[in-house]
């Protein structure tokens, strides 16, 4: 019997989030159909999220520990990502509260599924066994598919959810096939054993190892929406409720990138010899370059801000891939790991804020059946100057303009890339992100320069909880931009125990 109760402490954030989901499910039974007594649900979910956030932050400095006989690990990057995911969850449920109430779709299951999905994300970032990776990936994905189909208005949500499901399951099947080949090469599904098999690979089994690595990477490339596996993103991000889109963009990306880094560095870090001095690095470089280019180019013609943000999330996946490429090697490069974690945190705060404001506009438009277009943003500055300022801040941060979080994030990643000798990739990244300025600033122009076409307010519904969440996002974005050193413990502890 290999169970040690202390192992539960290592996965405490996931345990807390699961318990929170169960608590919401249990209390849901006692509620009337459409009573006002549902108001507490988002706050209960947020409380569990905050506890998980607190736990993962307080464990940050602890030494790394192997859990469940090597199936998972409590290390720096797992804890940092758990903190990012928990924070993402708190902000998203607060933004969802008013949104769902306005569209009369407020149910406890929404928050329960969000909590379960966050638990899956935390475990995914801590998994060191491909079977745990796979199950955690499915927990996260199944919950997010259901959240995508949450609204019953029009054809878009169901279509988006089904498309997401089909491509997500396709990615899972590919990942599974890769895991099977990895098992064939290593005789085990532990990432550590895989590293051993990679190191000892001979002419025969290296084929097996390459195929396994390629299939596992493709599986994750779907999840993080890297080119050429990005085609599901615009429709899915557009069809999902805006708070869920923010949660998807921030949380799923954070967990999937941490795991991709863990598999590539921890498992395939030693691929070398027959594949060139840097192993798979050149492939990731190509993937990153193409993803940055495609995301930024396709975002330019978009008239809907929600769709534009979807394409921009592809571009951001490209920047994150740059940091993965910069990590390459049997020992991960420190500054690239810091860059990855900081970028994920800064992107989470920014993108949730941006989708939060999209949510405020969307819930106003939803009864009319209209979709969000740049013209609907006109006049926001006159009627809601604070929201306009916040949206401009988020756009500037996504574009990477100082002094925002996005600038510091890009700085960290591109600096790491240059130090890793990937100068052309870094220059290419800077150029594409400069091209991104155009479509981000166009939103700001519409907010401030274009007058409103209709007399009624641009946004609708109760705003208090959403306002609190947006304020938190804005504060985080400025804070991370002005004083990145304050987040040093979050990023720098992420290296502990990572790699081997």
């Amino acid at each position, binding site marked *: *019997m*290999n*169970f040690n109760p202390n*192992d539960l402490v290592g*996965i405490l954030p996931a345990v807390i989030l*699961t318990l929170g989901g169960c608590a919401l*499910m249990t209390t849901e039974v006692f509620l009337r159909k459409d009573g006002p007594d549902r108001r507490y649900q988002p706050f209960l979910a947020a409380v569990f999220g905050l506890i998980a956030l607190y736990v993962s932050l307080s464990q940050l400095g602890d030494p790394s520990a192997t*859990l*469940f*006989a*090597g*199936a*998972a690990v409590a290390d720096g990057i797992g804890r940092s990502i758990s903190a990012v995911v928990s924070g993402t969850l708190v902000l998203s449920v607060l933004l969802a509260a008013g949104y769902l109430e306005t569209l*009369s*779709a407020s*149910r406890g*299951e929404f928050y*329960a*599924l969000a909590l*379960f*999905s966050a*638990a*899956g994300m935390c*475990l995914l970032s801590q998994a060191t*066994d491909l*079977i*745990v990776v796979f*199950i*955690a990936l*499915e*927990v996260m994905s*199944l*919950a997010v*598919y*259901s959240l995508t*189909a*949450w*609204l*019953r208005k029009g054809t878009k949500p169901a279509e988006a*959810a089904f498309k997401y499901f089909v491509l997500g399951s396709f990615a899972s099947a590919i990942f599974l096939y890769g895991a099977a*080949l990895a098992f*064939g*090469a*290593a*005789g*085990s599904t*532990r990432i*550590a*054993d895989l590293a*051993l*098999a990679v190191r*000892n*690979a*001979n*002419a*025969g*089994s290296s*084929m*097996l190892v390459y*195929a396994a690595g390629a299939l596992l990477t493709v599986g994750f490339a779907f999840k993080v929406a890297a080119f050429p596996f990005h085609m599901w993103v615009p429709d899915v991000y557009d069809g999902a409720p805006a708070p869920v889109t923010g949660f998807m963009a921030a949380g799923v990306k954070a967990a999937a990138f941490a795991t991709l880094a863990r598999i590539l560095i921890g498992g395939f870090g030693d691929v070398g010899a027959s594949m060139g001095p840097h192993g798979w690095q050149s492939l990731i470089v190509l993937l990153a370059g193409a993803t940055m280019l495609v995301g930024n180019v396709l975002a330019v013609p978009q008239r809907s801000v929600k769709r534009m943000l979807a394409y921009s999330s592809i571009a951001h996946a490209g920047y994150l891939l740059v940091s993965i490429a910069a990590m390459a090697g049997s020992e991960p490069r420190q500054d690239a790991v810091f860059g990855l974690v900081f970028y994920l945190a800064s992107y989470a705060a920014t993108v949730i804020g941006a989708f939060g404001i999209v949510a405020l506009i969307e819930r106003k438009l939803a009864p009319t059946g209209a979709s969000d277009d740049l013209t609907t943003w006109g006049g926001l500055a006159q009627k809601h100057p604070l929201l306009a300022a916040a949206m401009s801040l988020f756009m500037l941060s996504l574009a990477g303009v100082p002094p925002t979080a996005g600038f510091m994030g890009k700085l960290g990643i591109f600096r790491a890339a240059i130090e890793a000798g990937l100068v052309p990739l870094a220059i290419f990244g800077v150029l594409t992100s400069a091209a991104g300025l155009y479509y981000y600033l166009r939103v700001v122009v519409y907010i401030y320069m274009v007058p409103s076409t209709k007399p009624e307010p641009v946004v609708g519904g109760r705003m208090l909880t959403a306002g609190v969440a947006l304020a938190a996002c804005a504060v985080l974005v400025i804070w991370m931009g002005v004083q990145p050193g304050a987040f040093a413990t979050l990023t720098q502890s992420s290296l502990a125990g990572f790699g081997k």
Partner: protein
Amino acid sequence: MAETILFYIFAIGVLFAGAQVVLRRNPVHGALSLVACFFFLAGTYVLLAAHLIAILQIMVYAGAVMVLFVFVIMLLNLKDEELGTPRRTIWKGIGLVSVVGATGAVAWRGLGSAYDSVLAHGAATQLTDMAKHTLPGAPFGSLKAVAHAVYLNSVLPFELTSLLLLVAVVGAVVVAKGKI
């Protein structure tokens, strides 16, 4: 020898039924072919000494998944014109040939030659205990051996699967509801 013949019979059955799954227009035919495909697959599992997996494959797929599929198909009550007309494009053919060719080549030339190294790794002493895990007195693939590995050495995946099933139940119920 008998095993080899059986294996090839099952393999042809798997591929033929699998092709029926993806080629039949009628979803009921597709679902029934899927069950046939998985029966043949269960046969190969028996030949590979995975008796528990084989019987579970039949019970889960014939007993649960098939019923679920057919139930949903009946519930939706598809009319013939709603099934769509089959498209025959040149891309289908090209895609099929290239995909099968590429994977077949990899499996035949590359992965097959890895066979020896797989055996070599199995014998390697460097692997962690889990990889080498065997239970004295329980033959390979027996219920006892698999149960030992599942319940004693896979605590986290096992518990995580229960969370997955909970999520699937909640998600399916919520999504299938007509009104939130």
